[in-house]
């Protein structure tokens, strides 16, 4: 089932509208490739393609858990995770553009 999902995702990759219109990568380019690599089990490959994907997935998992169990300090930790994800995205984007 996981294999078929991966296969379907690989055959239905969407082009980034930003990249199509403007010509260079947007800060979100690479997410799909990284996600497919992660589904295949290549964690390092996924981090190389898009470093912010795994923290972002953790953020969503934590958000769902927080909505379900309502931790008292959960909102604050979510905020710190969010700031971490945003800074990873920006730093990796700057490195990608300078390379």
């Amino acid at each position, binding site marked *: 089932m996981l294999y078929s999902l991966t296969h379907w995702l690989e055959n239905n990759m969407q082009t980034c*509208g930003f990249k199509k219109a403007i*010509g260079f990568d947007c800060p979100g380019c690479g997410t799909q490739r990284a996600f497919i690599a992660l589904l295949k089990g290549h964690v390092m490959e996924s981090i190389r393609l898009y470093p912010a994907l795994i923290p972002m997935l953790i*953020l*969503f998992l934590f958000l769902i858990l927080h909505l379900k169990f309502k931790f008292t300090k959960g909102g604050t930790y*979510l905020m710190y995770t*969010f700031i971490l994800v945003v800074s990873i995205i920006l730093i990796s984007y700057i490195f990608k553009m300078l390379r």
Partner: protein
Amino acid sequence: MENQGTPNQDNSNQVFSQQFRQLQQLPNSTAVLVLGIISLPVCFCYFLMGIPGFVLSIISLSMASKAKKIYEVNPSLYTPGSYNNLKAGRVCAIIGLVLNSILLITVIIVFVMVASTGVAIESILHDMHVR
């Protein structure tokens, strides 16, 4: 909410009621948090660059300001967890708003550049040595 302010008969009952008094969730506090967080991934998805995330973060911010006014009228009525949600959601929405507006402004500038000069974007980028 029902027990709010009613005097209790004896001490043990008071302790019990303080422990189990129903504190309310702030209205829309989780919605503020969810919208603030969702505005980040929506920001990079797809052709309407920046527009959905922009709208989501603005909705989140307006909800946050309303909920904050409600909280300030009577802070002891609401759970601290939901106030944390509100604060965190507000910060996330502000960050999302900044990112989305940067993206939106970039897209608008590029389209204006293309429309005004009539030069294809590839040649502009080539002159700028971006690619």
